[in-house]
């Protein structure tokens, strides 16, 4: 709920303009409702506290007003929504379909700051819609993001439309039929799958015997449009007579959930929320079968082997789950759609999931220039250690810059968790001070001395003394690469030296003095421990 402030006020005022495309028998449930679609849709404020933001105006049109002008809000201190606020105001109004068929309902309101949502998902026309059965009601709220809005601006103040159409025959197999019941053989569990909308399934399993497997088919439920779809959910080792599952898919994080984050920075492709009506310990394992359209994989440059699956833990963290790609031969034999790549993920806990792509992430863990002072025209080399902290192999062009200008680059290929060291070198004809960076990471400062001066290391004087370079001279001037060869695959081995160009990598056989000190400390502690034991024995 937005709180009031003296400044930074934003008012949202929306008025519905009913528009509907079909006419059947109309029923108005009560008098405090706005009816559209010839009465087949009824819109009214909810009884929840947030229902105060909606009311019927003088024209009996539903209006949403989140500002001080809302006649239902009695609190004099309430002024509106803060600028810069983000959040969800749910359960503002509810829409009931009173017709006798099925209706796809959406709300038309093209505004970047305000999104109509139902169950955390957008219901705005053009993205997705919600399918209502006769006398079914959906509760609608607002997702608000006023970052970038102007103080005092009136956001909204125009009309939104509630649009509906009868489910097309194509949809009817999913929606009107809506409910499919399956029983395989005598004694097997009976499964029922309801499809209220493209991105929602309600699974029910009954007649389950101890330890049974229950297999639900989701009939390509949309997780992210039609590109990522849920094929089904299998429950193994069920120890209850009946189970209920609700699955909802979405291309973006759910309204009250967080986006996928993990140390390897995977790219989320779709989200899936599974609510269940049984205790977690009543099912041994759940397998989630999903598929990704081949054209979508090609269009996004996604390697099917990099598709993975995450589960959000109770603590909000995202944990990668085992996922396997279904063999193409199995796909053919099983009669699965061959225009998609099929996957099967397993989990023992249920919550929110994400389908994601493992991607490479290159981090510069160390970068240093040597020598730090040179004469004009001499060469300086930066040795940088890169690590692929992502979850997939990849290659990246790494650029050495001096005062922001590129000097040299290399293409480095690394497997996940692989580290390599590359050398990037350039000659610097002009005197000055250069801030060096590798892939944006600081690599130190290079002093290029005046040949007539005393600033260069090769002169045998203090490399840190003033080279006499002016600010203009310090600007990047004429540095040239001597290491500019772009060699794909350089550094692709585990040997850090493999990526360097001309200079061989130094591989000392060395030990660290500090760690050696730690070892001596361990020896000392052990001896002290023996002395203590002996003393205890004597006493």
């Amino acid at each position, binding site marked *: 709920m937005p709180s009031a402030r003296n400044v930074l006020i934003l008012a949202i005022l929306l008025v519905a303009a009913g528009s509907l495309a079909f006419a059947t028998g109309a029923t108005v449930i009560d008098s405090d409702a706005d009816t559209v679609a010839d009465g087949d849709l009824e819109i009214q404020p909810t009884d929840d506290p947030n229902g105060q933001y909606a009311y019927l105006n003088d024209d009996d049109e539903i209006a949403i007003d989140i500002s001080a002008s809302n006649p239902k809000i009695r609190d004099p201190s309430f002024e509106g929504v803060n600028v810069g606020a983000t959040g969800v105001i749910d359960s503002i109004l509810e829409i009931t379909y009173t017709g006798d068929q099925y209706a796809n309902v959406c709300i038309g309101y093209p505004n970047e700051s305000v999104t109509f949502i139902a169950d955390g998902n957008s219901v705005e026309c053009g993205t997705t819609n919600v399918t209502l059965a006769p006398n079914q009601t959906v509760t609608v709220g607002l997702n608000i993001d006023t970052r970038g809005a102007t103080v005092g601006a009136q956001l909204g103040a125009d009309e939104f439309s509630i649009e509906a159409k009868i489910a097309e025959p194509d949809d009817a197999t999913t929606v009107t039929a809506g409910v499919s019941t399956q029983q395989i053989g005598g004694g097997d569990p009976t499964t029922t799958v309801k499809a209220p909308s493209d991105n929602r399934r309600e699974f029910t399993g009954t007649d389950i015997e101890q330890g049974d497997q229950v297999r639900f088919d989701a009939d390509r439920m949309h997780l992210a449009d039609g590109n990522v779809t849920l094929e089904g959910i299998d429950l193994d080792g069920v120890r209850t007579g009946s189970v209920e599952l609700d699955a909802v898919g979405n291309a973006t994080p759910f309204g009250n959930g967080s986006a996928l984050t993990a140390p390897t920075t995977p790219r989320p492709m779709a989200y899936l929320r599974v609510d269940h009506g049984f205790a977690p310990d009543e099912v041994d394992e759940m397998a989630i079968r999903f598929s990704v359209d081949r054209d979508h994989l090609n269009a996004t440059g996604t390697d099917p082997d990099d598709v993975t699956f995450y589960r959000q833990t109770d603590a909000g963290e995202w944990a990668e789950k085992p996922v396997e790609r279904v063999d193409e031969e199995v796909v053919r034999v099983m009669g699965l759609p061959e225009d998609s790549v099929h996957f099967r993920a397993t989990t023992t806990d249920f919550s929110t999931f994400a389908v994601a792509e493992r991607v490479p992430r290159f981090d510069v*863990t*160390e970068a*240093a220039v*040597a020598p730090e002072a040179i004469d004009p025209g001499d060469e300086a080399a930066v*040795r940088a*250690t890169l690590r692929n902290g992502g*979850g997939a192999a990849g290659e990246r062009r790494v650029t050495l810059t001096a005062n922001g200008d590129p000097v040299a680059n290399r293409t480095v290929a690394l*497997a*996940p*968790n692989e*580290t390599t*060291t590359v050398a990037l070198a350039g000659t610097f004809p002009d005197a000055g001070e250069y801030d060096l960076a590798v892939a944006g990471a600081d690599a130190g400062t290079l002093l290029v001395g005046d040949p007539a001066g005393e600033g260069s290391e090769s002169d045998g004087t203090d490399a840190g003394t003033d080279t006499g370079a002016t600010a203009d001279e310090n600007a990047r001037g004429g540095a040239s690469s001597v290491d500019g060869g772009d060699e794909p695959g350089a550094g692709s*081995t585990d*040997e*850090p*030296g*493999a990526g*360097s160009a001309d200079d*061989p*990598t*130094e*591989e*000392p*056989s*060395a*030990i*660290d*003095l500090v*760690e*050696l000190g*730690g*070892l*001596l400390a*361990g*020896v000392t502690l*052990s*001896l002290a421990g*023996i002395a203590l*034991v*002996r003393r205890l*024995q004597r006493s």
Partner: protein
Amino acid sequence: MTASSTQRSDETGANRNPDGSGLRHDLAAGIRLADVLVLAAVPALLGAVFTLPESTRRSLAFAYTDPTLLTAFTAHYVHLDPGHLAGNVAGYCLLVGVGYALAVLGDARRFFLTALATFLLAFPFVLSALNLAVPRNAIGFGFSGINMALSGLLPLLLGAYARERIVPGASIRALPAVFFGLVGWIALLALPLSAADLGVAGIATGVAGALLAVLYASSAGISIRASAADIARAVASRPGDGELFVVGAVLVVGYPVVGFPTDPAVAGSVVNLYVHFLGFCLAFIGPFALFATGTFEEE
């Protein structure tokens, strides 16, 4: 070595005093000046090489793209910066000091000196040659490959010492179990631990090493629990002897931590863990074969 282990134990027991003076006495009696001079010659040599001009030292490093027989040997005595030299000299002093003491008191002095001579003279060629198995544009140098060889020898010296002064009659046959355990330990230290790819290899090798150690010990008829209890009682009851055994044991387990850092990349160079591992393994396997067959039984 002609007396039985039990007899030796009785003999050394006569010199064992509650304050540990027996160990000091035995040690003083066993140390020879010539040995000390030989051992001290190594740091002196390393220091002398370090005084050479850097360009000369670089020319003595082993370039994998241009290997020569000379640099295959000299590279192991070359250091390019003082920190590198200091670390290796300190490690050598620690390992060779404790190793020599264990050898003298464990009737394995000749075995130790022979092994050391092998490490100093032959191992440089072997380690450099094996480095060529992984072609890359790099140069190798430094003494820690030989230091790791000393680390690999330490379990053998510790076993000989334990047989003489801690648990008389202890079997040397169980030492490969220690080796397998240490290899697993090194894998856990050197390989990144994760649930994927190389991380799994590290964990798997670590677990396999531990299992092999247990299986080998069992097949040799040795109860790890009973042996550990015997050693603990002996260590607690034998001042001097117990302390030296513990120092040796801590070095056996702790030196791999120093020699196999998790992140080998340091300031633009990378520690050659491959050479470290080769040195450690070769120094255990070869000498153990000779040691177990009694080749170095001292008269």
